[in-house]
């Protein structure tokens, strides 16, 4: 493998990892704080990408500004989602799954109706190629990685240092106990949902510029996010970083050797194998 290829694959691996981690952190927050298996995370990712497209391409707004607008709109949707879709069914996983699936159906078909099911593409956020000692790297992928890394460290810092972040950890451990200590668990879950949806929208917009936009783009990403969360172990925030890096690396190096479907199959086989030896995930502490 030449150094050129190695450089490109590595930056690709870092970029993919950071996007997987952004998605997985949101999914993990909802799963550990509210016990919600939010399958709708995929359509929020997709909708984020489409809103960014709508503002940047159709309305001609500055692309970075449209990214922020998409994030804010999706974060607001997250607020709504927690208040009216998850809170009424607190502690009833069956109904939250059905409402999440209803959201998938509704949002996917709305996008189909509004923009059509054919593929669209966002223009590149940062076009250009960086050359350094004979290695050329795509600036866009580098920027995507940097945004992802900054956001995920900001989130981890937020969880570790801020009061509401600490409350999140407490609710994740034991929601009744946390409520007894005077923590408003609804406010904590609202903040978590807003953050999760915002991060998904950022990931959707950035990935929409790198790949393409289509109404079903979230499915693949959702599976990856779930893989990362389960591999890390539910309840482990730091583990998500490790697991995300592992999967991102696998997904960028394996295609050099295998076809697309085979890559996914091998990745999944590795995740299943690890789970069989550590049923609680790589970094989780209990089953």
């Amino acid at each position, binding site marked *: 493998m030449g150094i050129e290829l190695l450089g490109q694959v590595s930056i690709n691996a870092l970029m993919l990892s950071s996007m997987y981690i952004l998605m997985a952190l949101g999914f993990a927050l909802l799963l550990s704080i509210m016990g919600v298996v939010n399958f709708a995370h995929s359509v929020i990712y997709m909708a984020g990408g489409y809103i960014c497209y709508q503002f940047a391409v159709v309305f001609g707004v500055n692309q970075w500004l449209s990214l922020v607008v998409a994030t804010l709109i999706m974060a607001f949707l997250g607020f709504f989602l927690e208040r009216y879709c998850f809170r*009424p069914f607190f502690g009833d996983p069956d109904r939250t799954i059905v409402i999440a699936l209803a959201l998938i159906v509704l949002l996917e078909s709305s996008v189909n109706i509004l923009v059509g099911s054919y593929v669209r593409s966002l223009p590149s956020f940062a076009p250009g190629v960086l050359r350094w000692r004979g290695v050329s790297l795509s600036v866009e992928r580098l920027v995507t990685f940097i945004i992802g890394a900054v956001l995920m460290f900001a989130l981890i810092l937020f969880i570790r240092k801020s009061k509401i972040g600490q409350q999140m950890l407490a609710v994740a451990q034991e929601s009744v106990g946390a409520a007894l200590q005077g923590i408003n668990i609804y406010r904590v879950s609202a903040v978590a949902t807003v953050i999760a949806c915002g991060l998904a929208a950022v990931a959707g917009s950035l990935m929409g510029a790198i790949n393409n936009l289509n109404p079903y783009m979230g499915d693949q990403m959702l599976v990856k996010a779930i893989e990362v969360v389960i591999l890390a172990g539910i309840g482990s925030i730091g583990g998500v970083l490790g697991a995300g890096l592992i999967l991102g690396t696998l997904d960028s190096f394996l295609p050099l050797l295998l076809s697309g*479907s085979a890559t996914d199959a091998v990745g*999944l086989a590795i995740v299943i194998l690890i789970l069989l030896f550590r049923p609680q995930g790589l970094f989780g502490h209990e089953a």
Partner: protein
Amino acid sequence: MKTAGLTTVIVLLFALPLLVRQPYYIHTFIITLIYVILVSSLRLVALSGQVSVGHAAFMGIGAYFSAIISKEFGVTPWLTIPLGGLASMAVAVLVGFPFTRVRAIYFSMVSLFGGIMIVNLIRVAKRWTGAAGLAGIPPLTPIEIPGLVTITFLGQKVPHYYFTLLLTLVCLLCLHRLEHCRIGMTWKGVAQSHLVASSVGINEAGLRVLALAVGCFFAGIAGAWYAHYNLVVTPNTFGFLPSIFLVMYMLVGGRDRFAGPIVGTAILVMVPEFFRSLKEFAPLILGGIMVLVVFLMPRGIAGLFDQIGAHRGAPARKEAKNAA
């Protein structure tokens, strides 16, 4: 009264081709019946406390196995359809032992990964499965009863409908018996508490594998039947979204009752088909039904009877309390 209602429904289903002439609607009914088998078998797996989110992949194993055997070796589909079920069951046993090491949400997610992996492997095995889709699957061979009738299947919806109905009834009967016999009760016990179950000497891991295997057997049969009816199978039919849709049919119907998956599938598969003229707006109706069910019927559509019963029973209970 219950028997009378059931008899009416079955008689109506048998009389259906006389009432409905359009082949398209008959087709919708056939597909619905196949999905009824699938979702009911998924409920059987869920009885033992494990919600599989990769059930469509097991349908795919049955479909591809039966299709390939009958296509490559010229075996009659009547023989390969049970074989498809057995193949699906064999895979379920094989993956069941490792998969049952994990529980609850972890099991659901591992089965999800397993399902996607199976579909990816189907795509990789191009030589037999044709990657993007397998066409030219032999149709069901004609049945000849000498001196009486010959039933041909190719291009005929009505015979297909009757045989699908028969298959569905037989499968549902088996599933119902299984649920209400001793094994079924043990499965429910394992679901409630695996610790208690194993402390009274129940081999709970083995029983969970058994539940998965039996459920996947019926899923494989349904898949194989689908393959020989549709004559074309594509991996996407068995992927990630179809698998979660099966779970959705079960939950919307209500997983507490045997009728739940049947009602849920009937409504969620048929309603969007009947509103097909609305084109891309049809899924919105589906989403609307789901939202209604979630907000109004906490135990699913079939749980509505319990809800009404509880509502009626409430004043009576209050009186009983006052008397005491």
